[in-house]
């Protein structure tokens, strides 16, 4: 393997990993609090569309990220109302959100962008001095858009939040023993609602990164299952954001390996390479059995006095 190919592989993996990471730690937050969020694919798409549109309108990327996160929160609102407050089936509402946003963003794309197919210019990177000078890995990992570093910082912040603060304890209690949390005088509905809104913000940001940095363009259905990979990462992450990061890099490598291999003209069928991360997860599940541990009350609506 040439150094260029190695660099391309790692760099491509890092770019592809950021949306997966944000979707994964977002999903993890909901799941921790006992809400299985199947609507995350829709939140990613909403973030991608809003982020791309806002970046196009303002000519700057950061308003796009804000708009992406806001769009994710807007999509999370019906989930809060219907699943957390009214206790409706989380999987049904989640699927409705995903399908609805797939259709809606495809419609808006057609109305707004299908004449000119606008693109965003290539984003500016932040070189981290010193680290970026490491051969091969340096430019691939430490010469990226600032949001990529921010995503890793968010990972660290959430890991701290879950382990060291009352907020983390409340989240975990809402997912494992909501009645106990209620008895302790904490509003379960509020904790879960905030967790779902947080999921929306993180997933929306991930979608915005995908459209603004990853692709530079919005295409209908562009998330292509990234939200579902996020759900898998959250389930395998056992409540630990760092495990989600590891998984996101693994899947990112699998998703981007195809492009890197095509660039160097390697004679490996791309479809085989794409199977790798999924096959690895299946092998891990066969070997370690019940690795994915889920909160006891996941998917169950909480109603007081039952």
């Amino acid at each position, binding site marked *: 393997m040439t150094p260029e190919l190695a660099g391309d592989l790692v760099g491509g993996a890092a770019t592809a990993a950021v949306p997966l990471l944000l979707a994964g730690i977002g999903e993890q937050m909901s799941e921790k609090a006992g809400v299985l969020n199947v609507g995350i694919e829709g939140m990613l798409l909403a973030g991608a569309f809003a982020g791309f549109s806002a970046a196009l309108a303002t000519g700057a990327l950061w308003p796009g990220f804000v708009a992406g996160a806001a769009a994710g929160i807007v999509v999370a609102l019906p989930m809060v109302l219907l699943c957390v407050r009214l206790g409706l089936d989380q999987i049904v509402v989640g699927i409705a959100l995903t399908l*609805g946003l797939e259709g809606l963003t495809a419609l808006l794309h057609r109305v707004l962008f299908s004449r000119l197919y606008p693109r965003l210019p290539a984003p500016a990177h932040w070189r981290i001095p010193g680290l970026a000078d490491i051969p091969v890995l340096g430019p691939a990992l430490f010469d990226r858009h600032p949001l990529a570093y921010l995503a890793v910082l968010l990972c660290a912040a959430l890991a701290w939040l879950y382990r060291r603060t009352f907020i983390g304890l409340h989240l975990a209690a809402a997912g494992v023993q909501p009645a106990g949390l209620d008895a302790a005088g904490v509003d379960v509905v509020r904790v879960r609602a905030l967790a779902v809104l947080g999921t929306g913000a993180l997933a929306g940001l991930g979608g915005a990164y995908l459209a603004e940095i990853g692709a530079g363009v919005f295409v209908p259905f562009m998330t292509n299952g990234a939200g579902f990979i996020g759900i898998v990462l959250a389930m395998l992450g056992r409540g630990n954001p760092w495990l989600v990061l590891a998984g996101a890099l693994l899947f990112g490598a699998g998703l981007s390996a195809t492009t890197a291999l095509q660039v160097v003209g390697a004679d490996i069928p791309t479809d*085989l390479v794409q199977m790798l991360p999924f096959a690895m997860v299946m092998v891990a599940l066969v070997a370690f059995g019940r690795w994915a541990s889920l909160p006891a009350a996941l998917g169950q609506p909480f109603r007081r006095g039952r």
Partner: protein
Amino acid sequence: MKAVALPVLGALLASALVLLAVGVDPLAYYGIVLQRGLLSAHGLAASAIRVAPLLLLAASLMVSFSAGLWNLGGDGQFLLAAVAVSAVCPPLDALAGPWLALPVGLALSLAAGALWAALPAYLRAWRGVNEIITTLMMSFLGASLANTLIKMAFRDPGTTVPQTRILPVADRLPRLFGSTVHLGVVLAALVLLAVHVLLARTAFGLRLRTLGASARAARHAGIDVARTTFVALVASGALAGLAGGVEILGVWGGVRADWNPGFGLSVVALVCLARLNGLAIAALVPLFAVLSVGGESATIRLGVPSAFALVFVALLLLFLALGEAAARMRR
């Protein structure tokens, strides 16, 4: 009746508002959808053909959902069965004719779907691994494997496009009454009816539903939970495979690389909408077929993408869920 009519009306109205907001005349849109999806001979046939794979996928989900199991890997099972059928049936047809190739193809598609569901089923039944993760993983794997197989193993050397050999039109599933509608539509309806009866009227169906209601209750009732779980998921995979087989043997005759109609998630929504009721599914699936077939025509005429049918399904799902919540609160 009111519990269904109101949400349908609400979803139609809300979709119309969405269309108005982007500057499309909703009446024109609904007019084209009705005309091209239902009222023209060509559209009616196209919608009827679309119903076949959707009904079989719905039957597949009814089996697993009634046991409380989420088979979200329908797309992978569908595609691999389609590839298996496309690999075997055209050569077999050339050797022995359609009377052997068609039944073998249908059986093969059942087997391929079941095989692709077997690993998640085993892991769930005896190792306690969440089936949502494993079926999703196997679905992504299956889609890539299907492409690999088409390009590397079963590629038709006679064409430049990566695709399998194609079954001649005359040797596909028989057409009905001189139309383009094939026998698979009838087969799908019969399978859905059989699954409905199986779940509602047989001891096996009762075991599945008991397991779905409560695994602990099922264990106390003496049901072999692991075995029943395995059978439910594998049977669900087999039916999803049959959907792929019928679509190939009835419509396409072979598979192109990267072909993936992606029916999976929409059908999950339809089955949730119907609350696992076979009759309600039999009503909702044709409605969705008309919407999606008619919607594809509206793409060309009005610039509304075919994916807009998904917005209607989503709104219908939300309104039905809301209606139920309202009914519960009144009690």
